[in-house]
């Protein structure tokens, strides 16, 4: 045997290996495509493992936990006022709305009711955070399917709403303004007029979105018939919010299970769409944003005067008991199951977040769609990662 150098030997082995590779029949089977955890369409760190056949998705499996902060555990070692700080950060785009059900649950256990002015201001801020949250969706959906401009419009106009929220609460994203028994403070002078003008601007924004996206044939071609969720499936998965209403289910907790806010004292309607596809979800949210601006207008008109805080002890101990309060948040039904043992802090808090249920339908709805549709569906289901992972 002649002495061969390592180099020659390696070359021989690799050429043999290359031959073997070519001769083996090429495996044209499924390809696994990881969408995320770092991907522009996942609003954070959601990962969807898609099994593809060509560009068609055979199986899509969302994997979460990249942002799991363990809020249910953290709430157990905090007092009630401290919990709202965490709760702000669940759905960070509509954070005032997060505080409300938790505070209402605690109030229910304490058998305290906030004075009417506090309830109305709560409702106003609730709807403002809905406008801020959904406005971002309206633009973001555009960017998900390739239109650059809508999202900038959304950021531009959402800023006005956030400024209004900040002027009252002091926080753009994390208001921490709700207190057991009322609110931290009253609204400052001149705020009502400013908010009215902002609401007019938001309606213009909705019109722009209607021209820019809803009427656009390309948008319709991309969204119509994509990700259809029939109503019975939506109910079984516990979809909520606009996702449920876009499937034709007429269910809105603001109207059907109002936990005591001022929604039953104003005129408004619940929007539904029979199609259940991505376009329907966009359309319903657009109408809801518009409706919310009208609701804010009415609420500002009818704001009652009075105190903003009920009589509650300075150190809050919530009597033992259990309460589940959920409200119709921008994303859907957000509920808090609070178990108290009469302590300073809750014994157990189960946070029922809308996005968790909404995104759990992904494996069902993404069977057989194309890769671009994955993005469309994800965008139209509209989740906030902090809302999934808590």
């Amino acid at each position, binding site marked *: 045997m002649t002495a061969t150098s390592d180099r020659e030997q390696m070359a021989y082995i690799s050429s043999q290996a290359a031959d073997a590779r070519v001769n083996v029949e090429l495996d044209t089977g499924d390809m696994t495509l990881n969408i995320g955890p770092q991907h522009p369409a996942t609003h954070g760190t959601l990962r969807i493992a898609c099994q593809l056949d060509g560009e068609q998705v055979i199986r899509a499996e969302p994997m979460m936990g990249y942002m799991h902060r363990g809020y249910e555990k953290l709430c157990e070692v905090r007092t009630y006022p401290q919990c709202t700080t965490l709760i702000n950060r669940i759905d960070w785009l509509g954070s005032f709305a997060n505080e409300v059900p938790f505070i209402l649950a605690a109030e229910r256990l304490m058998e305290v009711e906030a004075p009417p*002015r506090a309830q109305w201001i709560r409702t106003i801020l609730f709807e403002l955070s809905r406008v801020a949250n959904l406005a971002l969706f309206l633009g973001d959906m555009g960017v998900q399917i390739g239109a650059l401009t809508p999202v900038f419009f959304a950021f531009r106009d959402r800023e006005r709403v956030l400024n209004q929220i900040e002027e009252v609460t002091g*926080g753009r994203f994390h208001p921490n303004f709700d207190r057991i028994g009322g609110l931290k403070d*009253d609204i*400052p*002078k001149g705020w009502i007029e400013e908010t009215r003008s902002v609401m007019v601007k938001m309606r213009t924004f909705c019109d722009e979105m209607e021209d*820019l996206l809803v009427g656009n044939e390309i948008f319709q071609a991309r969204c119509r018939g994509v990700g259809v969720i029939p109503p019975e499936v939506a109910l079984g998965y516990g979809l909520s919010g606009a996702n449920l209403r876009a499937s034709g289910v007429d269910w809105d907790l603001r109207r059907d299970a109002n936990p005591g806010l001022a929604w039953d004292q104003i005129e408004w309607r619940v929007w539904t769409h029979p199609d259940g596809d991505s376009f329907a979800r966009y359309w319903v949210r657009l109408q809801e944003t518009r409706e919310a601006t009208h609701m804010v207008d009415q609420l500002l008109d009818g*704001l009652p005067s009075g*105190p*903003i805080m009920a009589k509650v002890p300075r150190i809050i101990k919530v009597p033992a008991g259990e309460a589940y309060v959920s409200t119709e948040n921008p994303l859907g039904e957000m509920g808090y199951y609070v178990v108290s043992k009469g302590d300073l802090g809750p014994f157990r808090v189960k946070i029922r977040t809308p996005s968790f249920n909404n995104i759990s339908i992904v494996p069902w709805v993404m069977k057989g769609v194309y890769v671009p549709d994955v993005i469309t569906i994800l965008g139209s289901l509209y989740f906030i990662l902090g809302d999934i992972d808590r």
Partner: protein
Amino acid sequence: MPQLPGLIKGLGVTAKTAGRTLFPKRGWKTLIPAPQKGAVTVQYPHEKEAPPERARGVIALHEENCTACMLCSRSCPDWCIYIEGHKVKAPPRREGGKPRTVNMLDRFDIDYALCMYCGICVEVCPFDALFWTPEYEYSEPRIADLLHDKDRLGEWMDTVPDFLDYEPGSEQTVRKVPR
């Protein structure tokens, strides 16, 4: 597939926005481009945004009012307020009284790297020693430098704005900032 109106409407929206941004002036000045005025963005280092008075930018400490009662430190959800103090003897308030024992504040640090800006400490303070100010330019290149001591917190006291008046219908009373 393409029905023109929807597509053309979209083009109209972007063109209109471009026009508004480029020519924001009205009247005879319409044709003078002034994007600086038409754009909604704030050119940050050159011009600065004025946050609302209630904005929770940073916590200022009015040291004279602090009695080192530890309430803020204990109610902080993040455990980011560190207080140390010692007791001293102070002269009596009036003639013939006995000397009083008062708390002296040695250390009042807030770790802004941990702070969640919830404002619970400001709220629980029974002696009006903590205030929010909209000041926001205090970023540091190193995370450890975000631990600010009572001198730095005291400097921010100058930037605390007055409390705002309320909308009619409110029963709240406007508080005063100690100066």
